[in-house]
């Protein structure tokens, strides 16, 4: 595993934040340090964990911070920012994302968070996924209901067509009917 440390923008704490710190007396540093850990050997279609460790310069963990993970994705000629997921740092300052790279090449994972002054900060880590000939699509098993298959469909269609055939036989019966005289019903029509 390789670890990449980023120093976020220097002015994290604004005037309000400083006032709050002085009131509560919390020993928070003026800088947030984000360590992003990504796997050494990522592979297409293989789940991996991207971990971000938030702490102050004095190595004090920053807990309960909302973090989102993003990636710039290009598809069909259009590039857009895609949110991969979100997490909240635990008491040790860790936030993690389970990530599944779908394409080969270099991926830039952005970790975004908002700290104290309300401004959004961004830390970036990159990982390179080697190209393979692996097929990513796997059909799911689905729900297999016994008897619900092509034969049921064929049986249904066959029954309907058999009934239609019986209608055709009735027409043949009309053509070969006996020579008994026609019935004298109101709607009867026939030659004399």
């Amino acid at each position, binding site marked *: 595993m390789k670890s990449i440390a980023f120093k976020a923008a220097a002015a994290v704490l604004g005037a309000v934040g400083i006032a709050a710190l002085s009131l509560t007396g919390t020993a928070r540093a003026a800088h947030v340090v984000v360590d992003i850990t990504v796997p050494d050997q990522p592979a297409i279609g293989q789940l991996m964990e991207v971990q971000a460790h938030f702490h102050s310069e004095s190595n004090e963990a920053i807990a309960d911070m909302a973090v989102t993970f993003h990636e710039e994705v290009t598809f069909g000629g259009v590039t857009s920012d*895609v949110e991969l997921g979100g997490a909240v740092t635990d008491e040790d300052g860790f936030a993690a994302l389970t990530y599944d790279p779908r394409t080969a090449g270099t991926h830039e994972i952005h970790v975004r968070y908002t700290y104290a002054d309300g401004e959004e900060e961004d830390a970036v880590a990159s990982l390179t996924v080697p190209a393979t000939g692996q097929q990513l699509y796997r059909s799911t098993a689905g729900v297999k209901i016994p008897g619900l298959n092509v034969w049921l469909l064929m049986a249904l269609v066959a029954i309907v067509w058999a009934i239609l055939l019986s209608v055709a036989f009735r027409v043949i019966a009309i053509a070969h*009917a006996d020579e008994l005289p*026609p019935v004298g019903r109101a709607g009867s029509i026939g030659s004399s």
Partner: protein
Amino acid sequence: MEEVTSPWRDRLEETALAPVTGTSRAYYAWVAFLLVVIAWGVYAYSRQLQDGLVVTGMRDRISWGLYITTFVFFIGISHAGTLISAILRVSQARWRTPITRMAEFITLVSLICGALFVIIDLGRPDRVLNVIRYGRWQSPIVWDVLAITTYITASTAYLFLPMIPDLALFRDKLAGRVSGWRMWLYRVLSVRWRGTHSQWQSMGAAMTTAMILIIPIAVSVHTVVSWIFAMTLREPWNSTIFGAFFVAGAIFSGVAMLIIVMAILRKVYHLEEYITEKHFVYLGYLLGTFSLIMVYGNVSEYLTTGYKMSEGTEFHFRQLFLGEFAGFYWFYLLGGLVLPGLLILLPLTRNIWGVVAASVLVVAAMWVERYFIVVAGFRVPLMPYEPSTYAPTWVEISVVAAGFALFALLITLFVKIFPIMAVWEVAEDEPTTEPEPAVARLPNGAAPEPAGGAGG
């Protein structure tokens, strides 16, 4: 044979024979006009065959347009006939007798026209065989092909069976009055009908089987057509009621088309004695009922999906209610569902003209509904890209116009060759006393007797 005859019966037979024996100049002019429209459509289609689907407005993101809209519309119209006719026969509604034949004509003709549009939409018509060569039974397209071919076969049988005695009438009464090929046709199709007891028995049994069978087939056809949409991963088509909604819409538009065709044929072939205001009002009631069902379907569909309002639904609702398709949607809802309902509800407009006006609105609105279901459904982006647009080209408009002209032409030719009414069925309702013409009409606002209960 000793034929049952009376002045009323003679008049009925002459009325049924009249379209076959006499041809006016207006008829030729009408046929010529339809042929010109069809010829133009064939030319447009030849351009499509030559250059490919690029001559249409369809592209990769919106890959279905006017053709599939018209296909769904015609399949819906096909419910006019067989389903309505079968339901009325099963429920023994005697008032149905003068209109069932027209309804059955509409079914067959609209199925032919509808099926053509699927092939036209392919671009490469020879690839229609791929459904058979490479089709998978899990595909709704394969179910659709099975359902429609079964429905065409069953509808042909259902049209043909009750026509046999009338074809025999034509064979007997038109000898020497029509051309040789027609006599040959009547002779072959009347399958040696002489009206014997066993022939009536065979025909009765066949008709009973066919009319019971055809109802589930008809329902299955439009259900499967709806599943082509509902089983595709598109936000606007994620619906559990699509099947029922499509079947209701099909009967709705089918009844409306039947009323329009009835009104035209009644006027052209002077069928006022047999197709009375009662028939229009009864079918109007059916239309009104289905307009309420359609309104309910819309509320149920859009309220539930809108309540959850996923991202795609929001986009779809904006384009449907406020954006690109708002004009279409509000015309469909207000002009095609609410206004026809009011026209039938109000005693002042509950007459032939009111019902026909309502039907014209319904037919137009149901085509529009198919259009925005198809095109607006495709327009919702699946990926973060700009939504595409679709505008039909002259080729598509010409081909669709030719499709409607073909529909009208086939109806025109059918009534020119085959009996326009089920004479033997109408004859069973022969009145004991000759009614004055005015008696056959209902006074304004008068409610007719309950459907199915009276008359026979």
